[in-house]
C-alpha cells in the first residue's frame, strides 16, 4: 500500500539528513513512506503501526480523523514511529516545502528516540512485535469468538493506565536487609523449653518440635503481606496472580507491553516535540529553505506553534524552553551568582559569553523527561514571557476561568498535569485482603477525587479480571472511604 520516495524527495531527504548530521544529531536511520490521506489517517488511528490487533477503538479514531480531515478541521502532517529503523509517513499531497520541514522534524524525533534516556528501555523492534501481537489476538478471536475476546480487551483497556511507568528504569527489586532476614529466621525457631541435655528428647521431642516449626512457618506465610510491598504495576500483578485463562493472560500482557511502549512518548511529549521543532526550524531557516519557500515555511511553522487559550501547545512550550535554555547557557544565566542577582537591568543585559548553550541542550535531551525538564528549567521570567496561566473550572458560571498567573502556582499545576500523565496513583496494597483473596487498592491522596462513574465501572472491570471482590481506598467529599464491588453491587464505608 505504501510508496517509496520519488527521486526528488529522495534528493531532498539526503540534503536534510546531511544537515541534521552536520548539526550533530545522532539518529536511527529513517524509512520514509508516502501515503494518501486516508491511508495516513488509518496508520495514525492504529497509533502509527500499520498492523495492529483488531479493535473498535481504532475504528473510532479513524472516524474522527477522517471527519476532522474531510471537514478541514485538522490535518496530520507527520507521523513517526520509535523503532530502529524509524518509520515516518509523509502525506502524498503535501507540497515540497512541507515535506522538507517534516523530514527535518522527523530526523530530530529519531535523534530523540535514540538518545533520550527515557526511551532506552523501549523495544526498538516494536514494528514486528506489534504485528505479532495482532497475529496472536486474531488467533484468539478465531478460537474463542470475537465477542468474548473483544469484551476482555475492553476490560484490559480500561485498566491500561495502571502501570508503573518508571519501573523499567529501576534495576533491582529492593533487597531485604540482613537484620530483617535474621529476625525472620529467629521467628521460625519454635520455643524450646529449658531442659538438661539428657532430658532434651523427652521435654522437647523432635517430632513435636518439627510440627511446631511447620505450624509457625504456616502462620508466618499467612501473615506475610501479599504483595510484600505495595505494587503500582497493577497489570503485572493481575497477570501473575489473577485466575485467568492462558489466552486472557496473554492478551493482558499484550496490552501491558504496548502501554509501556507508549509511556515514554507521554512522558516526553513537550521535550520531544520541542526538540523536533527546534531542529526543523534550525535546519529550514539556516540551511534547507530556498528563498521562494520561506513564506510557506513560515506560515506552516507558525500554524503549528499557535496556541489556544485552554490548551498548552507542547510544540510551542518545548521549542521556547529549549531556546531559552540555549540562550541562558550561552550567556551564563545560571548558577548562584545569577540567582542571587536582584538587579533587573543587570539581569537583562547579562552576558558572560560562555557559548555552552548548544552543548547544554544536547545534554538536556539526553537525560530529562517532561517533569524534570519543567521542574528544572521553567523560570519565572520564562513563564511571564510566555504568558502562562493556571485555569480552573467555575461551577457557578460553568466555564473555565483563568485562576492565576502566579509562577509557583502555575508551575505546580503544570507539574501535576505531567506527573504520572496527570493520572491518579493507585497501588495494590493487598491481594489477599481479609485472607479471602480479595483485592485491596489504595489511591494515593493528592487532593482530588476520582470521577465516580468511571471509578465504579473500572472496578467492575477489575472484578471481571480478578474474579473476587475488589476494594478501593480513596478520598471522596473530603472523607477517606473504602469502596467495594463484590460482583453484584457497590458498597462504601468510611474509614478513620
Amino acid at each position, binding site marked *: 500500500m505504501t510508496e517509496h520516495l520519488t527521486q526528488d524527495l529522495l534528493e531532498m531527504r539526503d540534503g536534510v539528513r546531511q544537515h541534521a548530521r552536520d548539526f550533530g544529531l545522532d539518529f536511527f536511520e529513517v524509512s520514509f513512506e508516502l501515503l494518501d490521506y486516508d491511508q495516513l489517517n488509518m496508520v495514525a488511528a492504529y497509533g502509527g503501526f500499520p498492523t495492529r490487533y483488531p479493535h473498535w477503538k*481504532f475504528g473510532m479514531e479513524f472516524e474522527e480523523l477522517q471527519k476532522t480531515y474531510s471537514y478541514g478541521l485538522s490535518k496530520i502532517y507527520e507521523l513517526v514511529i520509535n523503532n530502529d529503523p524509524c518509520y515516518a509517513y509523509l502525506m502524498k499531497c503535501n507540497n515540497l516545502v512541507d515535506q522538507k520541514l517534516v523530514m527535518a522534524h522527523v530526523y530530530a524525533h529519531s535523534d530523540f528516540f535514540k538518545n533520550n534516556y527515557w526511551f532506552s528501555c523501549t523495544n526498538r523492534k516494536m514494528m514486528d512485535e506489534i504485528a505479532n501481537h495482532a497475529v496472536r489476538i486474531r488467533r484468539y478471536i478465531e478460537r474463542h469468538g470475537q465477542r468474548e475476546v473483544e469484551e476482555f480487551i475492553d476490560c484490559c483497556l480500561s485498566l491500561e493506565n495502571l502501570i508503573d511507568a518508571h519501573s523499567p528504569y529501576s534495576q533491582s527489586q529492593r533487597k531485604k536487609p540482613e537484620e530483617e532476614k535474621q529476625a525472620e529466621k529467629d521467628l521460625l525457631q519454635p520455643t524450646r523449653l529449658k531442659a538438661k541435655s539428657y532430658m532434651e528428647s523427652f521435654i522437647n521431642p523432635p517430632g513435636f518440635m518439627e510440627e511446631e516449626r511447620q505450624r509457625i512457618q504456616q502462620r508466618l506465610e499467612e501473615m506475610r503481606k501479599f504483595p510484600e510491598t505495595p505494587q503500582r504495576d497493577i497489570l503485572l500483578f493481575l497477570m501473575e496472580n489473577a485466575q485467568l485463562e492462558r489466552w486472557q493472560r496473554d492478551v493482558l500482557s499484550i496490552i501491558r507491553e504496548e502501554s509501556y511502549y507508549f509511556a515514554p512518548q507521554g512522558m516526553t511529549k513537550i521535550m520531544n516535540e520541542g526538540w523536533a521543532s527546534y531542529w526543523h526550524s534550525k535546519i529550514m531557516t539556516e540551511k534547507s529553505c530556498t528563498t521562494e519557500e520561506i513564506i510557506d515555511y513560515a506560515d506552516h511553522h507558525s500554524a503549528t506553534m499557535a496556541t489556544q487559550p485552554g490548551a498548552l501547545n507542547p510544540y510551542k512550550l518545548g521549542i521556547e524552553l529549549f531556546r531559552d535554555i540555549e540562550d541562558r547557557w550561552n550567556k551564563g544565566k545560571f548558577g548562584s551568582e545569577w540567582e542571587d542577582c536582584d538587579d533587573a537591568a543587570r539581569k537583562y543585559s547579562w552576558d558572560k559569553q560562555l557559548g555552552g548553550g548548544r552543548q547544554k541542550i544536547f545534554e538536556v535531551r539526553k537525560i530529562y523527561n517532561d517533569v524534570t525538564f519543567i521542574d528544572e528549567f521553567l523560570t519565572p521570567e520564562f513563564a511571564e514571557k510566555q504568558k*502562562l496561566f493556571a485555569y480552573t473550572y467555575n461551577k457557578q458560571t460553568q466555564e473555565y476561568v483563568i485562576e492565576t498567573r502566579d509562577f509557583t502556582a502555575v508551575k505546580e499545576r503544570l507539574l501535576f498535569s505531567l506527573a504520572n500523565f496527570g493520572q*491518579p496513583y493507585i497501588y495494590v496494597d493487598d491481594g489477599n485482603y481479609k485472607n479471602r483473596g480479595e483485592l485491596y487498592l489504595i489511591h494515593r491522596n493528592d487532593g482530588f477525587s476520582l470521577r465516580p462513574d468511571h471509578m465504579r465501572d473500572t472496578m467492575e472491570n477489575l472484578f471481571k479480571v480478578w474474579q473476587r471482590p475488589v476494594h478501593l481506598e480513596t478520598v471522596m467529599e473530603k472523607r477517606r472511604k473504602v469502596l467495594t464491588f463484590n460482583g453484584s453491587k457497590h458498597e462504601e464505608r468510611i474509614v478513620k
Partner: protein
Amino acid sequence: MVHRIDPDTNRFKEIVRGKIKHNLKKYISHGELLGRQGDNVVSIPLPQIELPRFRYGQQQTGGVGQGEGEEGSALQPGPGQGQGAGDAAGEHVLEVEVTLEELAEILGEELELPRIEPRGERAVDSSTDKYTGIHKSGPESLRHFKRTFKEALKRQIMAGLYNPERPVIVPVREDRRYRSWKQKSVPESNAVIIYMMDVSGSMGTEQKEIVRIESFWIDTWLKAQYRQIETRYIIHDSAAREVDQHTFFHVRESGGTRISSAYQLTKEIVEKDYDLTRWNIYPFHFSDGDNWGGEDTALCMNLLRGFLLPSSNMFCYGQVKSAYGSGQFIKDLMDSFADCDNLILSEINNRDEIYRSIKTFLGKGK
C-alpha cells in the same frame, strides 16, 4: 477502496447505533465538531466512546494554558482534551465553513436518513441552462481558452510552424472555440413545512429549546432535499395564530390548550396557499400532550383523518415531556391511527433524545 481498518470502523459504528454491545452504550458521548455556517457555529456530530478508567475530572483539576487574559476572565472556548500518551502526530487546527447543504449531507450520513422521494405527479418542470458543448462560434465572453489554444497548436504542428525550442502559439480566428449551452428541464418539487407549537402554560423554556433545536435540524434536512421550501409557523394555546419565526421561538404564553385550533388553521392555510398537486406538505406539531378535553381531541382526530393526513406527505407529532402535561394526546393518536403510516409519532423526554427523534421523523423518506 477497502482498508484494513474498515472492520474496526464498522464495529464501532454498530456499537454507536446500539446494534451490539449494549454495555458500552452508556459511554457513548455524542460529541460534536464545531463548524461555522455564516455567523452561526454549527456542529458536526462525532460520537465517541470513552472507556472507563481511574481518572480525575478535568473540571476538578484544572490545567495550564498560554495566552492573554486577566485573572478571573473566562476561557473561550472550553479547553481541549489536553495531551495524552500516544503517537507523535503533528496536527494543526483550522477553522472551517460548512454550508447548509454539507451540513444536511453530514446529518443524513449520521442519522442514515434516506433521501426523500417527492410524490410523483406533483413534480413541476423548470428549466436551466447547462454548458455542455463546444461550438465554433459564439460570444467572446464564452471563449474556451484551453480548447482554442489546443486547436492552434494542432494547426501549427500540421503546418510545421511549431518550434518546440521556442513554443509560441498564436491562435487565429478559425481556432477559436466557444462554450455552448443546452436548455435542460429539471423536475422540481416544492415543499412547505408547517410548524405548530403548543405554547400553553405548561411548555417551559427547556421544552421550547428542544423544539427549536429539533426544528432547526428538520429544516436543514428538508431544505437540502427541496429546491424551494417554505416554512410557516403556528402557535396555539386555546386559539391558534400564525406568527413569524422569531415569535415562534421566543413567545411565552399561558392558558389552556385546544389542539384542534392549530389543526384547523393549518387546514385553512393549506387550502388557501398550497395547491396539493404542486406542493409537498409537511406539518410538524410539538406539544406536551395536554389537551383541553376529549371533545377537542375527537375534533383533532376528525381533522387529521378528513384532511391533514391524506394531503400531507407525512404528519409528525412530537411530544415533549413536561412536568405539567399529562402526555395523553400521543396515546390518543396511537389508538386512533395505529395503522396509518404517514403519521409519525415521537416522544422527546430530554435533549439527548432529539437525535433519536429526528431519526424517527425523517427516517422514513416520505
